[in-house]
């Protein structure tokens, strides 16, 4: 696929090293995507990087990415300013199965920069709140300063999202939970029999979280994760993102936990 030019319309610094960019296609065509999909994003000659879409799927005139400035490609993306142009390919990948979750209680476990890939799904569920049972977000970050979308979290709660937040460490001014994300399971008082789980975050965090939910009786075929690997072509041709039998750019990034979990315990894979 040929990259398309997108102009940076707005840029906001979320944390010390994370920015949200709003992009508009130069073509003027809406950028339709499904929650959970990603693009291949690049700034100048710094290389392409797979980036989950963090925007509202019901506002396709704007492509929104929340980017953690970590390596050369993401640093270049985060350094762009309004008026400059980024190259975008996509959208790619298998999305969150939101229609299949209708009628169920849903718990969303997000860790750190794992919240942006879940944000489109949260916005879509809140836009159709009556289609779901409980929608519970368990969100963890390293410190209170590294929490994302803090200006939106209260609004999400008012729209019917049950929100529990924890951080790994904090000073005495923090009034919320401190500890790992699995410690939020009990206060959430989840009815695990028909629960569906969606998770995105560091792989270790997802592994611990989903193991804890499984211990509480959640079936592994009712747990979904968004996986990140070395995506390069985005269309299942190059094989760089292979995990076992799956090419994650094509068969993921959203995967059923029962299908992916055995491969995560294979060392060096």
């Amino acid at each position: 696929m040929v990259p398309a030019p997108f102009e940076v319309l707005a840029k906001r610094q979320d944390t010390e090293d994370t920015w949200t960019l709003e992009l508009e296609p130069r073509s003027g065509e809406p950028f339709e995507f499904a929650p959970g999909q990603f693009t291949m994003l690049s700034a100048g000659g710094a290389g392409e990087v797979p980036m989950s879409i963090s925007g509202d799927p019901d506002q396709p005139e704007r492509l929104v990415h929340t980017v953690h400035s970590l390596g050369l490609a993401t640093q270049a993306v985060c350094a762009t300013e309004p008026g400059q142009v980024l190259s975008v390919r996509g959208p790619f990948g298998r999305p969150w199965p939101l229609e299949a979750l209708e009628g169920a209680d849903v718990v969303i476990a997000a860790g750190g920069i794992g919240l942006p890939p879940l944000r489109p799904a949260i916005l879509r569920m809140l836009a159709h709140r009556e289609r779901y049972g409980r929608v519970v977000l368990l969100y963890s970050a390293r410190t209170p300063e590294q929490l994302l979308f803090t200006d939106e979290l209260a609004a999400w709660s008012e729209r019917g999202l049950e929100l529990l937040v924890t951080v790994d460490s904090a000073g005495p001014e923090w009034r919320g939970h401190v500890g790992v994300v699995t410690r939020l399971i009990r206060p959430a008082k989840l009815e695990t029999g028909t629960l569906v789980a969606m998770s995105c975050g560091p792989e270790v965090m997802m592994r611990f979280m989903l193991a804890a939910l499984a211990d509480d009786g959640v079936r592994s075929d009712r747990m979904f994760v968004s996986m990140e690997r070395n995506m390069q072509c985005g269309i299942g041709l190059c094989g760089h993102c292979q995990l076992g039998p799956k090419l994650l750019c094509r068969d993921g990034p959203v995967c059923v936990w029962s299908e992916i979990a055995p491969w995560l315990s294979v060392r060096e894979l």
Partner: protein
Amino acid sequence: MRMIDELIAATPTFAGLEPAHLELIAGCARNEHVAAGALLMREGEAADRFFLIRHGLVALEVDAPGRGAMRIQTLHEGEVVGWSWLFAPFRWHEDVRAVENCRLVSFDGTCLRGKCEDDHELGYQLMKRFAATVIDRLQETRFQLLDVYGRAPASA
């Protein structure tokens, strides 16, 4: 109003205990209210009590010179606070502070240790249950030490 033995029987730590044991434990317990910000335990002091949280949130804190109080874990409704009353040298290892106004059951650890010495079945049951709590918190601490949200090596 529910009796203390009924209250504690409904919590994970004490669920499944014999009624006679629940009664013995309740005999060392009383209800307590603490205000947000109150210090429940201070590092280094004698560990002669522990708590069950009925409502509210409490925090384990370590005071580090130059950094002030570091909040390292919070405990919530249904959880027990403190196991140092059960193990020598019976001293607290952290400060414990109420984050919110809390309703607690406060247990006299010295009283309960005496009952455990007299009734080893009670002692075994409590030791087993508190060991499970210690293991859970140890696993959580190991997970926390991974610093999974810390800066990973640069890739893209």
